[in-house]
């Protein structure tokens, strides 16, 4: 069983996200450890990309800050390797397809394995295209995390049947970012997923309050929070560590 599935199965989880290298890679290491200390079950690390088409303004700006601070894919893997000596928390990258393609799929997944990455989310590589790298990812034991959207309809079961690690249920239309209200009937999506797989399902996009965490962890296995944490990094920069700890502790307390 993968480290991801192991960490998420049979309980309710909080999943945190930060853009790696914002404001610096040394800080990313600290932020991950703070999230773990506050009770996060898994952390997603955004691989900074020049043109992140699935992100709202908050994470777009974090990508710009990380790239301006000199974050590269190589330096990111070096950081993860050091971080891995300090924690066993599952780590999942969120990377756009070109970051993998240009680096080379074989080399990218080899470095994932070597540094201690457990899975990867590729927001611009849908089910139909992932065949070009899924065997390579398998060879290195890296789970490709599948996304299911409010528009997926008949695709839900096809995607879920093939899922590994966990399933990322996108709560809302549009891009990442904090939302006051989520209108999608995520419960019926989770139900459809349950019919075909026991891979844990976590809900993300637009979640920023303890009440939302409470609601969505009662529907699914986990709640994912990204933009709200990245906002804290934007506000406090290198001093964000303790603020992230406090915020994640509050969110985790929403899990029933």
């Amino acid at each position, binding site marked *: 069983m993968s480290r991801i599935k192991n960490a998420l199965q049979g309980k309710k989880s909080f999943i945190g996200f930060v853009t790696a290298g914002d404001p610096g890679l040394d800080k990313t290491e600290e932020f991950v450890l703070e999230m773990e200390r506050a009770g996060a079950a898994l952390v997603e690390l955004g691989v900074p990309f020049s043109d992140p088409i699935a992100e709202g303004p908050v994470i777009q700006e974090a990508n710009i800050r990380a790239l301006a601070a000199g974050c590269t894919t190589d330096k990111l893997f070096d950081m993860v390797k050091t971080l891995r000596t300090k924690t066993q928390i599952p780590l999942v990258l969120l990377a756009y397809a070109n970051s993998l393609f240009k680096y080379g799929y074989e080399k990218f997944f080899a470095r994932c394995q070597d540094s201690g990455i457990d899975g990867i989310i590729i927001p611009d590589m*849908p089910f139909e295209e992932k065949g070009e790298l899924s065997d390579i990812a398998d060879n290195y034991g890296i789970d490709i995390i599948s996304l299911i959207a409010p*528009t997926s309809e*008949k*695709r839900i079961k096809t995607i879920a049947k093939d899922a590994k690690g966990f399933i990322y249920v996108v709560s809302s239309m*549009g891009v990442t970012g904090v939302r006051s209200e989520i209108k999608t009937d995520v419960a019926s999506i989770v139900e459809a997923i349950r019919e075909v797989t026991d891979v844990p399902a976590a809900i993300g996009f637009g979640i920023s309050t303890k009440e939302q965490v409470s609601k969505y962890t009662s529907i699914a296995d986990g709640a994912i929070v990204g933009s709200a944490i990245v906002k804290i990094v934007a506000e406090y920069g290198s001093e964000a560590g303790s603020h992230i700890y406090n915020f994640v502790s509050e969110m985790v307390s929403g899990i029933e």
Partner: protein
Amino acid sequence: MSKGRYGIHGGQYIPETLMNEIEKLEKAYEFYKNDKDFNDELNTLLAEYAGRPSLLYYAEKMTRDLGGAKIYFKREDLNHTGSHKINNVLGQVLLAKKMGKKRVIAETGAGQHGVATATAATLLDLECEIYMGKEDTIRQALNVYRMELLGAKVHPVESGTMTLKDAVNECMREWTNRVDDTLYVLGSVMGPHPFPMIVRDFQSVISREARAQILEKEGKLPDVVMACVGGGSNCMGMFYEFINDKDVKLIGCEAAGHGVDTDKTAATMAVGSEGIFHGMKSYFCQDEYGQIAPVYSISAGLDYPGVGPEHAYLKDIGRAQYVPVTDEEAVNAFEYIAREEGIIAAIESSHAVAHLMKIAPTMDKDQIIICCLSGRGDKDVAAIARYRGIDLHE
């Protein structure tokens, strides 16, 4: 398995949120492209509203002056709205209407595709919102006002380099936000399948007409067919019906900006490498980690870091040749064709004219070149004046 491949290029690299809609679009297009009513309606619009067929004009003075091949221009600049863009948008906006959409969104660089989309949307009673890099809204202020006159809402895009690529990013983001009642009317032969195919099909009217026109005028096929390439829609339209005519040489002219040996360039074929971006696998200007490079050209319409997947394929198999043309060469050509033929061509099209000026004198007098004049240059006059040091503002 993955669809819409041109060799290794193409595909559908987009967020899951859009996949169902893209499948619906593909199904709708496959149905309507063979539907008699749809085609009758589109052909009527092209003839009665856009002014097709466009002229195939024999440039006698330039032919004499350059002293080589016979030069013909395919006059897409004479279409309604002043460029080839109308061919594609009439098709796509009509398709949007048939699909029951209430609203269209589009990116624009120079503003030509935005103006064309706004025009088609107002004619066919659909709401229209245009995304345009803030930098381009300044370079092409007149086109912003044109779109607003036509009832469209223009969103200046302030992310990234604030040019065409960022406008495409923002359009994709907006489409994931609202797919139910909205069609993204993509302006070039790029993006995820089925867009490269749809746009190519609607633009291929250019070469369908040109091929018949040259056979009528000259009784033989041309030796060279050429056009400018940004994303590559006028160029693919100009090439398409000639691809199987193996003796016709196909040349795409891309924007080299200050030169391919500088970092101020948009010549993707010359300096780019294989990548995945904006929904497709193709060639892109990028760094070793796949970060998309800031590109530059005097022409807002060619200022794009990628190229359509079918062009990438035609390059790979050696069927088409792609050449870089600098700002300076394009501006010289802009002035030359104005003085020689009395045609103010778009700065985009002037890139193709510049390369034509290089090759025509090297060819025999019984050889023929057809060059696509993709758009008219009224929008560029102020910028060219400023390039020449004249303090002229719109």
